[in-house]
């Protein structure tokens, strides 16, 4: 198919920040004029963003700006009041969270949501379950097909755990892991669903600086080796500025700025949103 036709099929928004290598390819996620109202409160409004096929995108903003709500909208936990979400060119309207995941969006949670009573390995196996091809009949009778599927799944899980440096923890109970490991396990579980884009909700929350540095490395490796897009919400500016190629800043549910890390750092609107009007003035005076 020619380049021209592709771009015609999915007209890109004008103010995109897709990195150069993804330009011309269909964006993995194309969000248009997304909005949701809770009663009279408009939590998200006019949210338009496109994310390239292998982009690492950041979503930042002050507390209560609506960042997690946007993740919940993308995974259809909430149904949007307005606007549309195109995942690889397909509108996800009306799908369930599970269907959206099968289509290619995986996520982690701000307040960790692991299957605490199960082993680390089983947590990842649950993530992998849609690709385990084994009928209920065969698994109840433990036919050879069951062992084949289970062994394949186990090998894949260990591969993924090893990727995040957790292979030695496979038999531990997920709920008893240290905080940082729990966050990494959530990422492994999300990766196991074979996504096209992975949404990370504050992946570095509660991590110490060395863990955060390791996480940055992991995020880059996830993009490079799986060739998928990453979108992350984070308050740790070192991580966001260090790893993201494009950043969108939200405040009161609206995008107030988009751009590369350098552009965002020096954007007076962003500084104002974070520090207030007076703070912004001081910042300008300092620089």
């Amino acid at each position: 198919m020619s380049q021209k036709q592709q771009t015609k099929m999915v007209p890109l928004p004008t103010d995109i920040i897709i990195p150069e290598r993804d330009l011309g390819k269909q964006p993995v996620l194309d969000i248009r004029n997304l909005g949701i109202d809770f009663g009279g409160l408009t939590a998200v409004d006019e949210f338009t963003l496109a994310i390239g096929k292998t982009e690492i995108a950041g979503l930042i903003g002050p507390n209560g700006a609506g960042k997690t709500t946007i993740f919940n909208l993308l995974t259809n936990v909430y149904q949007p009041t307005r606007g549309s979400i195109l995942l690889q060119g397909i509108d996800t309207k009306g799908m369930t969270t599970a269907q959206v995941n099968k289509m290619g969006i995986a996520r982690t949670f701000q307040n960790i949501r692991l299957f605490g009573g199960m082993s680390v390995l089983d947590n990842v196996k649950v993530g992998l379950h849609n690709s385990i091809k084994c009928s209920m009949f065969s698994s109840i009778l433990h036919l050879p097909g069951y062992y084949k599927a289970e062994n394949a799944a186990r090998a894949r899980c260990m591969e993924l755990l090893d990727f995040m440096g957790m292979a030695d923890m496979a038999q531990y109970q997920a709920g008893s892991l240290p905080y940082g490991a729990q966050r990494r396990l959530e990422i492994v579980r999300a990766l196991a669903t074979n996504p096209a884009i992975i949404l990370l909700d504050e992946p570095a929350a509660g991590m110490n600086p060395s863990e955060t540095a390791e996480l940055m490395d992991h995020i880059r490796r996830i993009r490079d080796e799986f060739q998928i897009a990453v979108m992350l919400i984070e308050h740790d500016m070192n991580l966001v500025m260090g790893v993201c190629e494009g950043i969108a800043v939200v405040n009161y549910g609206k995008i107030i700025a988009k751009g590369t890390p350098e552009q965002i750092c020096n954007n007076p609107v962003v500084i104002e949103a974070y520090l207030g009007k007076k703070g912004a003035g001081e910042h300008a005076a300092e620089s």
Partner: protein
Amino acid sequence: MRLWKSKTSRQNLITLAVLSVLFALFYGLDSGGVLKRSLSGQLVPICVYIVMALSLNLTVGIMGELSLGHAGFMSIGAFSGVVAVTMLGNSIESPALLMTLGIIIGAALAGVAGFLIGIPVLRLRGDYLAIVTLAFGEIIKNILNCLYVTIDADGLHAAMFNGMELSGTFIINGPQGASITNRISTFGTGIVLVMVTLVIIMNFVHSKEGRAIKAIRDNRIAAESVGLNVTAYKMKAFVLSAAMAGAAGVLFAMNYSAIEPKKFNFNTSISVLVMVVLGGMGNLRGSIIAAIVLTVLPELLRGFDDYRMLIYAVVLILVMVLGANTRFQQFKITMKEKLKKRFSRKEAAK
């Protein structure tokens, strides 16, 4: 050897082995005529309640949804099993084959009922699910209370409310219940049914479906986010649980010459629930032990029969309270460690 390698399947094999030895022992004692009549009469009900407790454990312990209508599925299995066995009884000689067919039919119908009830019920959560299953248990009992089925040369006839018009001999006669012409339940069939149920549940729990259900129990939102179809998996477990209760019902009914619908009331559901809670949620071994103890004890303590449900209620509350009590859990853990230390010291001394 593959089985022995993994820890979980090793545990399962141990459970099965211990249970088979126990069963073999009692089977020998029973056929040798050593057992007291009262205990020997309890052998089939023990098997029935083990299957009931195991199947309810799948819903309550492993899926984490409180179901209070488990006796309803048991009664569907029992009554359909009686009808099937009476119908097939003329053409099939072998009691073992007859029993197998009866159990399969009873289980299938109870499974279908589980599916139909599951459609509305599994959309609910927590207390709501408990209340609706309670209601369904009672509804099934009341439907069976006014169901009349007869058999004659033309085949089966059935009517609701008005059984007088039907021709032929009654199989199910309203509130008087079902009459069983050939009591074909034996301890042997009971043993086989318990073993099959146990193996099915163990395998189910360690399969992809079992993991999915435990994941949904642990964190529903996360389970959805990794692409699990929550309702479909819950339905699978619920239907399986209902079908096994139905099988237990057939075994139960075929042990008596007559069985009334009111036998399968709320109290029966609660008794089975007590077995599950007492044995430990999700703990299959515990369920088996609790089922045996709670079936034999009331017989031994006949004098306290009036207080049985009261004691059950108190036990249920105690288990719930102590289970949630962190201090008691701490106490349990320290006791366990002490015991472990003592054992390891003994072994070291050897």
